[in-house]
Every structure is written in C-alpha cells, then in structure tokens.
C-alpha cells in the first residue's frame, strides 16, 4: 500500500500563515493525490538535534528505494528548508541531495498548485531502482 515517495515539507506549506488577500495552496491535498508521504521540517530557527533526527530518517528512506524530494517556500528565510544545515547532514550520511521545488505563496494559487503537481508527478527513482527495492 505504501507510496514509496516522500516529501520534506517546509512548515509554512503544511501550516500556512493566514495572510489577508492570499489564498494558500493546499499542499497536503496535492501531496496526497500524488501519493507522497510527508516529513515535516520545523519553522525557521535553531533546531540542531531535530534536524539531525530528520536527516537520519531521510537517509534510511534514501538508502532503501524511496524517492525523496524537498518542498520549500520562496518567501521564507532559507525557503523553510534549513538547507545550510540539512545539506551537510545528508552528505555526511551518504545521501544525494533531494531535488527541490519552491512554492511562491504570494503567487496565484492555481498556477502554483499546477507547478507543484507537475513536479511531484514527474519525479521518481529510475525504473531499475524501483524494481530492485519495491518488488
């Protein structure tokens, strides 16, 4: 039943702030439609131990046939991805950096939803890797 695809998701995409005049995209719905499980990243700030714990989990998935992507937000500091800290943690664990997609929260929700859906649906591991791990 599992979808074999995981998205690291910036907190602002999961819990969008309410901004007058801005309709946020429904990232969770789009992730569900494309069968991606979610690994939530914390909001901007210092989260050393939590990011190390998250990196351990990403490594376990990346080493066992799961496709991993990262979804951030243009308007957030560091795009909400903690990339300066997370990237070395992943490299240290032998994990190739996941492809990233940035959502423009101030942009048109329909356009941004279509861009995100196209990104999510286009990505997966090469077929030989899928066969090796997923049976």
């Amino acid at each position, binding site marked *: *039943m*599992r*979808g*074999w*695809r*995981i998205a690291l998701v910036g907190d602002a995409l*999961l*819990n969008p702030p309410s901004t007058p005049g801005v309709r946020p995209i429904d990232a*969770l719905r789009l*992730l*569900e439609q*494309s*069968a*991606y*499980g*979610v*690994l*939530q990243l*914390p909001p901007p700030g210092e*989260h050393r*131990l*939590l990011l*190390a*714990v*998250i990196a*351990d*989990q990403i490594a*376990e*998935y990346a080493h*066992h046939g*799961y496709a991993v992507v990262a979804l951030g937000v243009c308007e957030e500091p560091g795009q909400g991805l903690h990339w300066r800290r997370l990237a070395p943690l992943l490299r240290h664990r032998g994990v190739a950096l996941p492809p990233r997609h940035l959502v423009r929260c101030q942009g048109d929700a329909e356009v941004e939803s279509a861009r995100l859906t196209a990104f999510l649906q286009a990505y997966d591991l090469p077929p030989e890797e899928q066969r090796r791990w997923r049976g």
Partner: protein
Amino acid sequence: MEPPAQRKVALIAHCLLNQNAKVCEGARYPALVSPVIAALRERGYELLQLPCPELAFAGTRRWWAVYEQYDTPAYRAHCRRLAQAIAPRIAAHLRAGAEVVLIGLDGSPSTGVRFTSSKRDWGGRPNRPQDDWDIVPGRGVWIEELEAELARRGLPAVPATGWALDMGRYDETGASRDLEEFLDQRALAASAGRDDPVTL
C-alpha cells in the same frame, strides 16, 4: 473586542502523515491518513509531526513487534533522544498558551496512547498467525518516553488519544468517530476554560 482565537496544535504520530514509515505490511494508505488530517484541519489545528522512533531505530524493512520487544534500554534511550529533539517545539507552543493535543496510534508498541500491543513470548522468526497478539490498555514505549521528557521540563500533560490503526482489524469509521468525539470534547473544554488559562 473579541480576544484573538487560541492557537491549536496537534502533535501527530509520524505515520499519520507518512505511511511509508509503517512496519512491513502495516500501511493502510499510500501517503497520509486523510481522515485524521481532515478532522484536525477542519477544526483549525496546526500539525506538528512527531519523529518515528521505530523507523529511525530498526529501519524501513523491520518486522512487526510488540511492546515487550521494544521495551529495552537501547530503544528507550533512542526514544529519549527523539523526545529531546521535539520537546522544545512542543514547549514553545504550550508556553505560548496554545491548546495542544496528541494523536498517537492505538495498538502500536511505540506510539499507542489508549492501547498498545503485547505478547510476552514473542521473539525469533515472525511467523505467528494473524492477530496473534493482545491489545492491552496502556501507552507505547515512545509515548511513555515523550511524556516523561515533557514532565521533566515542567510541562503539563497533553490531552491525548490514539487513531486505532494498529488494533488488528481496521475500522476507519469507528476510528473517525472516536477522534471526532475527542476533538469536540477538547473544543468544549477549551471554551469552558478560556476565562481561567493555565500559566506556565
């Protein structure tokens, strides 16, 4: 003038947002457990995903297990590390006066809230017949350690329930009814207690 709405935060078991974390043969959905997420979002809860202790400890290809098999010093130390990683985020919400609830996974040896799984003689090759384990009242190991970490930090107990995913035969309708009753009771309790907020 109306006071600002109280912030509501749901601490949710990792696999409710990511079924890829489930034990072999344990995933019931391809991605996330949509009835839980819908019930929480409809009621205005922000989501705070807990780490998955079993995935980080025993990996994606682990077999199923019961409470007694995870009740080891090494696994408890691992759970304490995860609890120390996530506790500052929970503490920040509690200290800011948010209404915080915990949604675990009933029947899980790690994340059970109302019920966990038990079988004193399990071990070795996992070739037992289906449903050959007991569901007993009690917390899973991870929830025990998380609650202990919050208590060490002087934080109040967080109201908690479990989504009945690991109870043997899965009943989505019954699980939804339980969760919605819990959330609606929390809403009543919160509205009754707004004049007497807890100060941390």
